[in-house]
């Protein structure tokens, strides 16, 4: 099994006629993802290498039964595209676009929460890979094979790095989920960890965090209360310079949260072993699963 995407995924890409949208959509299809449509307003009726293009997402849902959307439009238009997917009834929206204004993200998140009919992953994320089933996004799939390790990460390239270390140690993956590092991610660590907990195929969960925010601290609380499967953590940024605080208000809000040390400590307090390098993560995984 896998989480979020699999053989039932029917993908529509918004921004499919842009060069990046086209490149990665076709790569996703080559991998085996069921790409059923693309959307570019005004280009309805055209096709991209055989993939039919529509003017609206609603039309892609209506005519092609799309249930998953990959957002590849430029940042000024990305929140609009996310909301269009939401209103069209798309169940899973995966937003790759980087650089969306924070207030746009906030509004999109709140609308999705209000209506309660879609899940958003990202924005500014590499997407999701369920090896041998489907790949939606920009994760380089050749490094990964099916297996029992679920990976969730705030960072794109770091995900590949950690995933690769696991692969070199012989592990495959149930799914790899990039949740993105933007101010308002649609899906958090706890959401994905909860899905992995309920996924029968996943036997070990790897989470890759980084400095800033308190998503890792919240994940630690969640793991302590709800997760029975082993979790291995990694936090990037132990030696990074402290980020700029947003005025006194930022300091008041964040308190002692946010440093790599605080995050590692929060996770370890709930029994999560935290590797200090990607290589160590793989070593810990081997110890736990006894390979």
């Amino acid at each position, binding site marked *: 099994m896998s989480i979020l995407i699999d053989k039932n995924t029917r993908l529509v890409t918004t921004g499919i006629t842009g060069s990046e949208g086209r490149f990665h959509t076709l790569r996703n299809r080559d991998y085996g993802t069921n790409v059923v449509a693309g959307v570019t307003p005004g280009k309805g009726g055209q096709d991209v290498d055989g993939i039919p293009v529509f003017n609206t997402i609603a039309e892609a849902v209506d005519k092609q039964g799309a249930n998953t959307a990959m957002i590849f439009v430029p940042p000024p238009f990305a929140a609009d595209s996310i909301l269009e997917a939401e209103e069209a009834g798309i169940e899973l929206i995966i937003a790759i676009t980087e650089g969306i204004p924070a207030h746009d993200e906030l509004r999109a998140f*709140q609308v999705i929460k209000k209506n309660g009919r879609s899940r958003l992953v990202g924005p500014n994320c590499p997407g999701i890979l369920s090896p041998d089933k489907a790949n939606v996004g920009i994760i380089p799939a050749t*490094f990964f094979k099916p297996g029992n390790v679920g990976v969730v990460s*705030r960072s794109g*390239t*770091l995900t*590949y*790095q950690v995933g690769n270390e696991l692969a070199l140690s012989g592990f495959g993956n149930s799914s790899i989920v990039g949740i993105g590092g933007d101010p308002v991610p649609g899906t958090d660590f706890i959401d994905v960890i909860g899905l992995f907990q309920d996924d029968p195929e996943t036997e070990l969960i790897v989470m890759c965090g980084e400095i800033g925010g308190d998503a890792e601290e919240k994940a630690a609380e969640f793991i302590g209360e709800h997760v029975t499967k082993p979790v291995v953590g990694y936090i990037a940024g132990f030696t990074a310079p402290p980020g700029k605080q*947003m005025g*006194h208000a*930022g300091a008041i809000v964040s308190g002692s949260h946010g440093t790599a040390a605080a995050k590692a400590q929060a996770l370890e307090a709930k029994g999560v072993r935290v590797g200090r390098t990607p290589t160590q993560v793989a070593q810990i995984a081997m110890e736990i699963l006894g390979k």
Partner: protein
Amino acid sequence: MDLLEYQGKQLFARHGIPVPSGKPARTVEEAVAAADEIGYPCAVKAQVQIGGRGKLGGIKIAANKDEAREHAQAILGMDIKGLTVYEVWIEGASQIASEYYASVVFDRSAKAPLVMLSTKGGMDIEAVADEDPDAIAHLHVDALIGFQDFHGRQLAFDAGVDADVVRPIGAFLKQLYNTFVAEECLLVEVNPLIITPERTLTALDAKVTLDNNSLFRHKDNAELRDLSAEDPQEKMAHDRGLTYVKLDGNIGILGNGAGLVMSTLDVVKGAGGEPANFLDAGGGSKAEAITSAVEVILSDSKVEAVLFNIFGGITRCDEVANGLIEAFSQLNPSVPFVVRLDGTNDKEGRQILAEANLPNVYTEATMDGAAAKVVELAKAHHA
């Protein structure tokens, strides 16, 4: 993007938030003319984004023209905690009956704007937060519903403001929130928000952080600059679309993706090295971006070895290899490079590098191996 005090006040004024009238000046003559226009007494305030400028002599009151000249001469060009003062802000001196604190911050954890108000404004609001957290009233706002009049009253009553300013404070907070939304800020902070003896409100300071990603919608804001904060190397990187932070070490670092770069810093440090910078070439890095990035890294004369750590997703390793080759042909670097390429088109990239046979370039298969190698080379180069 953080605004200078005066830029924040000008932004406030556009949204009807009361601020003292004032003018910015970059020369002593401009400052004196501004002071004459505003009248005396007036304040001459150094425009740098760092706390404690008052204690360091960056804010002075001028009672007359001579004092205005004297203060402007003293403050313009002075160094405050490493920042040079290029601008001063001249404003009418304010009478103060009470000093409050007010802010709206984009609270990522709650996924909502957070409005805060305290009657204990002034220099030490963080100490108040530590020692007497109840003295700061908090309210998270539902972004779809917005800040309502009753929210303003609620905060004012919770903070215990003077009874006669409950409604004005509420209205002020609503303006502050609406400004935060309209200008797509990550922070608006007023400390102190003063009550004058005539019981009117004035924002005596202004701290505003804009969202860089939204500047395409705010042309006026996009043109604002903070001369004092412009490190030439960081500016060069920014102009080229790279995220660069200068550090103290001697190993230049380039990676794609913030998480991977941070991880690289950790691994290099773990191997006994000292990174000279954080440089994220970004997703989808093209050859030119790589060439630019090398130029930025090498512009730091302390760099004695460089590590490329690339794991390609949207970035293609062949593009990275070509960028590095172009950088070598343009810059002819004297320091050694360690290159680790994995991911999209990695074989092609390694092939290109092998064929180019650049001097002093070493390829490594793993991140750990690359880190160990670059530390070794930096030490050798230094010796």
